[in-house]
C-alpha cells in the first residue's frame, strides 16, 4: 500500500506542476490510525499529504458535484466503487469527461473506521474488512486514464441479493414491523443522501418547502416515507457502493432497500449493474415497447 502512496504523490505533483489539472482529490491521514479523510489539493507542494491505506474508504466521486469542482479540471483517485460513481455522473451529464483525469487504484477491500473505533482495535491489521467491501463485486476501477499498481482479482461467488431474499421470505406484517423498527432509529440527518454519488439534484425534494413533500417533524412514519422516497430516487442509479449504510449513525440497513429495487430491475429488465459502462443507459430512463407492465 505504501508503494501506491508514493506513486500517488508523484503523479499528483506532476499533474499539478504541468498544469494538466487544477485540483487533485484524494485522501489524507487524520489524527488516528483509523482516520483517513478526503483531501482537496491545489498546490504541488501539498501533494505530500496524500495517502492510500486501509481506511481510504470514502467514495470521492461525490465531490465532483461541488460547484467549484464542476468548472475545473480535476484529477480524482478512483477505486472500483468511485469509478462507477463517476461513470453515473458522466451519464447524467453532471460532469464532463474531458474535465476529469481519473487515476485508478485497484482496491484490496478496505476497512471501516467506525468498526475500528467500536472494536477498540489497536492497529489496522486487526480490523476486519468493511461490510461494503465484503459484498463488493468490482474492486478494480471500470473507468480510468491511468492505473496505479496491478488489478486485483475480482470475486465471483458473492450473491449480492442474499439479504433481500432472506427478508422477502417473512410475512407482510413481520416485514412492516421490521422496517418500522428501522425507521424508528433514523435521525433524519440526511447523511445517506449527502454522501450518495447517485443523488445529484442541486435542489433535493426533501429540502423543497413549496410544496413540502416531507414533514419537517422527525417521526417514525415520516422516516418511513423518507426512506421509501430516497430508495426510489436512486433506484437504477445506485452503484451499490454502500456509502449510505456506512455513514448512517443509527446503523440502518439501507442497502437492503436499494438492493431490493435493483433485484426487481434485474428480474424485470435483465441483468443490470449501474455505472459499469458509459454506453449502457439505466433501464428506468429509457422506454422500450417490450417493457414489462406488471400491474397496469
Amino acid at each position: 500500500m505504501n508503494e501506491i502512496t508514493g506513486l500517488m504523490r508523484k503523479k499528483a505533483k506532476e499533474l499539478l506542476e504541468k498544469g494538466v489539472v487544477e485540483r487533485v482529490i484524494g485522501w489524507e491521514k487524520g489524527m488516528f490510525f483509523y482516520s483517513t479523510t478526503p483531501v482537496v489539493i491545489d498546490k504541488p507542494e501539498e501533494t505530500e499529504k496524500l495517502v492510500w491505506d486501509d481506511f481510504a474508504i470514502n467514495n470521492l466521486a461525490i465531490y465532483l458535484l461541488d460547484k467549484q469542482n464542476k468548472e475545473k479540471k480535476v484529477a480524482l483517485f478512483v477505486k472500483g466503487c468511485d469509478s462507477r460513481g463517476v461513470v453515473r455522473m458522466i451519464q447524467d451529464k453532471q460532469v464532463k469527461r474531458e474535465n476529469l483525469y481519473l487515476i485508478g487504484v485497484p482496491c484490496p477491500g478496505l476497512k471501516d473506521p467506525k468498526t475500528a473505533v467500536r472494536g477498540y482495535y489497536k492497529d489496522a491489521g486487526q480490523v476486519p474488512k468493511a461490510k461494503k467491501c465484503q459484498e463488493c463485486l468490482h474492486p478494480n476501477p471500470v473507468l480510468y486514464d491511468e492505473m496505479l499498481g496491478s488489478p486485483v482479482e475480482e470475486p465471483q461467488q458473492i450473491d449480492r441479493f442474499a439479504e433481500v431474499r432472506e427478508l422477502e421470505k417473512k410475512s407482510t406484517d413481520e416485514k412492516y414491523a421490521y422496517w418500522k423498527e428501522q425507521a424508528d432509529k433514523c435521525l433524519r440527518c440526511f447523511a445517506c443522501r449527502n454522501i450518495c454519488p447517485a443523488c445529484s439534484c442541486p435542489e433535493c425534494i426533501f429540502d423543497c418547502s413549496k410544496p413540502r413533500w416531507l414533514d419537517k417533524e422527525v417521526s417514525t412514519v415520516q422516516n418511513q416515507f423518507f426512506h421509501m422516497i430516497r430508495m426510489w430516487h436512486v433506484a437504477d442509479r445506485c452503484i451499490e457502493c454502500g456509502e449510505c449504510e456506512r455513514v448512517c449513525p443509527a446503523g440502518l440497513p439501507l442497502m437492503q432497500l436499494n438492493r431490493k429495487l435493483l433485484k426487481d430491475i434485474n428480474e424485470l429488465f435483465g441483468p443490470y449493474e449501474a455505472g459499469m459502462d458509459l454506453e449502457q443507459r439505466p433501464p428506468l430512463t429509457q422506454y422500450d415497447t417490450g417493457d414489462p407492465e406488471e400491474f397496469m
Partner: protein
Amino acid sequence: MTRMMEYIGLDPDRLMVKWVSGSEAQKFVDTVEELTEKVRALGPNRKLREHYE
C-alpha cells in the same frame, strides 16, 4: 411499485394504476368502483398512520 410495497410490509392491493383517457367516462367510473370495492373488503389501513399506532 407493488413489489416494493410488499417488501416494506404494505398491501399491494391498495394500489391501482390504470390508463384511462379523458373520453372514457364509463371506464373511469368502473375503475373507481372496482378499487373502492377492493379497499372496502380490505378494511381501513392502519399502517403508516401515526394516530392508530
